């Protein structure tokens, strides 16, 4: 019997998991082969060492920390679980779809409302006037409330289609 074949059967030999013939063949080989005998001894000693490795124990506050995590888990689940309910989620999708349809329908019925009312909170440190044609009505104006720049607004004052002669004017509302 070849040495490698014997080594390959080491575990099966120890577990008595071989046929009688195989078992005796290995025993006979071990009687004759010192190398395999030593290898088997070393393997046996290593397995014994692995069996007897120092046992670790968890730290004393292990359960406490775990239960604290579970407590937090409970509150997180309470906060998030509602949207996981299929009926709630489906209702949400239905409502969103309804709102979207209503918006599309209302725009289709009354296209004039689609003209933008443009607003911005941009800071306008200096009030001034920009005009292409001083005689025509202002269409786009910016107001500057110098008391609070956050209230500055830029808006379309007339919801009419744009004309080439429209004006853009900055209006300072400071008293």
């Amino acid at each position, binding site marked *: 019997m070849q040495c490698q074949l014997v*080594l*390959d*059967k*080491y*575990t*099966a030999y120890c*577990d008595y*998991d071989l046929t009688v013939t195989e078992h005796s063949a290995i025993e006979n080989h071990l009687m004759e082969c010192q190398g395999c005998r030593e*290898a088997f001894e*070393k*393997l046996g000693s*290593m*397995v014994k*060492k*692995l*069996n007897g*490795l*120092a*046992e*670790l*124990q*968890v*730290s004393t506050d*292990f*359960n406490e*920390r*775990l239960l604290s*995590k*579970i407590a937090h*888990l409970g509150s997180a689940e309470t906060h998030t679980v509602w949207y996981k309910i299929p009926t709630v989620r489906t209702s949400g999708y239905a409502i969103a779809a309804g709102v979207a349809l209503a918006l599309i329908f209302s725009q289709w019925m009354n296209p004039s409302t689609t003209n933008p009312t443009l607003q911005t909170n941009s800071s306008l440190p200096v009030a001034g006037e920009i005009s292409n044609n001083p005689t025509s009505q202002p269409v786009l104006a910016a107001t500057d409330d110098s008391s609070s720049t956050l209230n500055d607004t830029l808006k379309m004052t007339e919801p009419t289609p744009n004309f080439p002669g429209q004006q853009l004017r900055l209006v300072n509302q400071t008293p």
Partner: protein
Amino acid sequence: MNMQKQITVTDEELIARFQAGTEVAYIELVNRYKDRLLNFVYRFVGDRDEAEDIVQDTFLKVYKNRHAYREVAKFSTWIYTIAGNLARSELRKRRRHKTFSMSQIGLEDKEYDPPDTDAGPESHVSGQYEEAEIQRAIRQLPDQFRTIIILRDIQELSYEEISKILDIPMGTVKSRVNRARLKMQDLLKHLKENG
């Protein structure tokens, strides 16, 4: 009498009680498995604190997914599978990090053995060098051999249980145990020669 009754309650009965809402049963399962799992995971990742975190995550998963357990499998099989998966994913994460770090200095092909900053309990007992070397050898084993050697030779689980945990045929488990032992012995050759 009451003590006797407590001892004879099986893991499967405990998880069933926990599924029915008895949290005390969960605590009992934690007490039964926390040290066993710590040893299992520690041999896997080689860091005590990290191992304890993984064991905590394992019990959290058991808590959250208690209703996923079915009595077709032993509870031990189930919980070892969870812990093993978490430990493996931790190792994968580390390996990715390692590849990145080593690629910075062009040594990605070299076997990298990070310095063990947490020597674990071995530093406090006699034969600490030998135990440290064994731990080092375990960590050098390929994943499939490492798991097998931990489950069989350190945790001393049955072949049948290992087969269920790893979802591989029993014959494969047995042959892998043998190959893992031979590989392990090869890695510890210097140790044997020295002592």
